[in-house]
């Protein structure tokens, strides 16, 4: 999950996968999103070095790669904590107390949106609708969804994470 750029770039298995993705589409550059997903799953984020590597592979401007990485919220260009908390910021959740929940989380962990705790345990983000609008406020920790989360429940939930 957390290889360094250099480790990744000398990983034969990874390079083989990249080659395969390149050939998967009629036009090489269509493989961009798939490659970004692959890299993020290997490294946990997509470093600038990796963005440059992909640019070279697909003969695109590195800025173009960065543009795509920074456009999609599920791509990260900086290392994130071991666990990622995503708090829904769309209207129904906000009406159901999402704002208070977010403030609580932020104070509790001592980080603002987009930041990571100094022990590297938590990264806090907001996202648009998690598709649980009837059960707000909703949050997601890594791949697990939690609904109708109250501040107190949140404190309980995070005890299970290390």
């Amino acid at each position, binding site marked *: 999950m957390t290889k360094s750029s250099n480790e990744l770039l000398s990983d034969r298995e990874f390079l083989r996968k990249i080659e395969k993705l390149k050939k998967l589409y009629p036009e090489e550059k269509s493989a961009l999103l798939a490659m970004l997903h692959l890299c993020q799953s290997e490294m946990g984020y997509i470093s*600038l070095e990796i963005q440059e590597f992909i640019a070279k592979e697909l003969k*695109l*401007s590195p*800025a*173009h790669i*960065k*543009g795509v990485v*920074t456009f999609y919220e599920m791509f990260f260009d900086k290392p994130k904590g071991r666990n990622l908390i995503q708090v829904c910021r769309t209207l129904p959740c906000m009406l159901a107390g999402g704002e208070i929940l977010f403030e609580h989380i932020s104070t509790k962990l001592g980080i603002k949106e987009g930041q990571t705790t100094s022990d590297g345990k938590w990264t806090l983000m907001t996202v648009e609708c998690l598709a649980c609008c009837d059960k707000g406020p909703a949050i997601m920790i890594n791949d697990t969804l939690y609904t109708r989360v109250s501040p107190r429940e949140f404190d309980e939930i995070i005890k299970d994470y290390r």
Partner: protein
Amino acid sequence: MADTDSKGPNYPENVKTTTSPKETTEPLKGKNPGDIGATIRIQIDGIDVKVPLGTTILEAAKSAGIKIPVLCYHPKLKIAGNCRVCCVEVQGARTLQPACATPVAPNMVVWTSTPKVKQSIKTVVNLLLASHNCDCLVCDAAGACELQNLAYELGIDVRSRQFPISCNTLPEIDSSSPVLQYDSSKCIQCTRCIRACSEVQGKGIIAALHRSKNVMISAGIRNWSDSRCDGCGECVQACPTGALSQKVSPKVRVWEARKVRTSCSYCGVGCQLDMWVSENKLVKVEGADIVPNYGSTCVKGRYGHDFLNSSERLKTPMIRRNGVLQEATWEEAISEIAFKIKKIKGEHGNDAIAGLSSARVTNEENYLFQKTIRAAIGTNNVDHCARLCHASTVAGLAQAFGSGAMTNSIAELEHAKCILVTGSNTTETHPVIATVIRRAVREHGTKLIVVDPRRIDLVNNATLWLRQKNGTDVAWINGMMNVIISENLHNRTFIEQRTEGFEELRKIVEKFTPESVEEITHIPARDLIEAARIYAKAESSSIIYSMGITQHTTGTDNVLSIANLAMLTGQIGKPFSGVNPLRGQNNVQGACDVGALPNFYPGYQKVSDTLIKEKFEKAWGVKLSSKDGLTIIEMMNAIEEGKIKGLIVMGENPMVSDPNLKHVEKALRKTEFLVVIDIFMSETAALADVVLPAASFAEKEGTFTNTERRVILLREVLKAPGQAKPDWQIICDISSALGYEMKYHNAAEIMDEIASLTPIYGGIHHYRLQEKGIQWPCPNDDHPGTVYLHKDKFSRGLGKFHPVDFIPPDEIPNEEYPFILSTGRILFHYHTGTMSRKSVPLNEYVATGYAEIHPDDVKKLGLEDGGKVLISTKRGKIETIVKSTEKVAPGSVFVPFHFAEAPANMLTNDALDPIARIPEYKVAACKVEKPH
């Protein structure tokens, strides 16, 4: 159409229109190419307008004189339709339509300034201003900013913020590029810069990062300088606001400066530039939106002219007294020259004097220079550095076609179906032509074949790259012809009707089978065959070449082979097809045209032809010499042998540009009397007995002839510093002092004289050149000029095939000197660097010389990227810096020649092509080692 609602402007909901909604919405789906051309009628603001189908509402309105505001639209770029300030009402359409992106439809009714439209524009602009850093008070763009102008026209009050301020929260100013600066707080996300870099420049470097209010653009992923941006400034010119701005400048705003159009002084593309001047200082340069560059320039043209403001410019004449150059008056300097030249003439005869004219100064000045040498001094010893670049083109193409210049125009390249580039690193030497080539490939599907030993930038856009061994050009070209003939792809009709000598050609190329060619050139037979097929079969094929073809002992042979290839396939004498040697310096074409050559009078009229001589004797009123003069290298030899005693050099720097420099220096030191006319104290001027300060190209009037034979105007942008004078006035003074009276009121008068004596320039006069210049041949005052050459008939009548066999280069690698050395130019510098190395931004890009060496060799030799390296040949050695790159093949080294402190020409071979007398700059055997 007359029954528009009497209430005035129509609102879609309350009118029955004459056009059904179906008709008006249909064209929104996009243009139907088949329909373009048919003229239709539409109505805009009550005015009937007739336009071809496929026109947008915006263009239609413009043709009717109706102004619609725009921001993201730019006439050179594809439509983005993202800013919405151009929205108009289209009768029957549900919503407002963007005029820039909506094609017209029959009977469309459009209103451009209804209250609804006005309200919409105001809202859009207010929204833009809400996220805009409105510091117009201190912004460089004020007065030229399209957003500011629009806000002004709409009377927007920024204080009554209609929307809450929502500025970009990301870091604001990126000033990492040597030439430009990006301020995201002034960016309106119109994407004009992105499209300019991608569509016009064909580079596609810039992209938009982040999202919503944080959207910003960037070229690199860390900052601007981290990218492949080469500073051409196309994006800066395209930006409507102050977001992208030029970095280097004294701070000046448009209303404080005045704009003068002139021609670029750097390369042979001849870009038209708009130079902004304030208080006799150059403050800004923009590409003029006219042929040949249509607004584009390269980094040198736009940001490299700051040398004009340099304090090192020569300002007074100087005479060497007691071994040192000392300031003198013009009278003293001119009479010193007259005295010494007369003395040498008297003691050793006319041929003891020689002149080096210049590809950097105007046609008029070159004409007067050769006239002075021929008429006032009485010798044909006049040459200039074209000898060192395209003498073989002039010789070869004259033999094959009858005239040696680009057969086609630059603009035609964009529509050629196949372009073969060989021996030209176009991206670096003719940057704006490279953008045309890239556009051809990216936008029009042109097939690009690159044949070059180096992995030049254009290889990235090429369909096919053939990497030949240095100096084997005749072999691969013969090989291509072998394939073409054996596959029956040659153009029989063309060969029969337009050429002679085909049988001899057929015989010689027979033995150049792809397999045997592979052995000589190392080009895989398969690739050669494919290249031959693409080139021969394409509807139109254009060959572009440059010094990689000409600077060889077999330079003329190489050129002849290229001519053979074009004639064999009939790819010449028609639009988009031909043979196109790219001329290097700004006026190298013109200097040749007007006779700065030892064997030709102006217009390639032979010195040895008695009738011609008589014509010039009559016009100039003196007896002339019928003996061909000496070429540059021969002059140097003659000086060493003591045959030439006096040398006049105008705007050239042989101390850096000529091959085998040790020899050149020895010769120059040996001259009895050396005069140098220049704008800076060049390496050559430092050796002179008299130095005369010249006005630069921006400080005088005259003409250059660019590489596509276009005679273009120079205008006086600045006043010359100190006592510096235009070269033509200096030459007049010298000539008159020598007893041959020479007097002209202006450059236009000189051009009239050229026209009267030079058939190809017969109709060329300054008053005709104001807008776009004229491409020669232009025989008379009514002739519009010639876009492409050899239509229906070659200049010499029939085109002539010259069978040429392969001869290996003069020097081949051996045990002692195992590497192949080639030399050449780079984007950021120009010729011997007298101008470009005084430019601050150009030096920020590249400040020192270097040697490109393949990473494998770097490793093998124990060198280090960025470390020192010693390169030596039989003739000399230089120490320079290693640049490890796969651009060069293993076993090869490339050294740019602009740098006097590590002069590549210490190393180069002055072995000459037997016909054109051009030296072999492109192949020498060298040794590469770590300095001890």
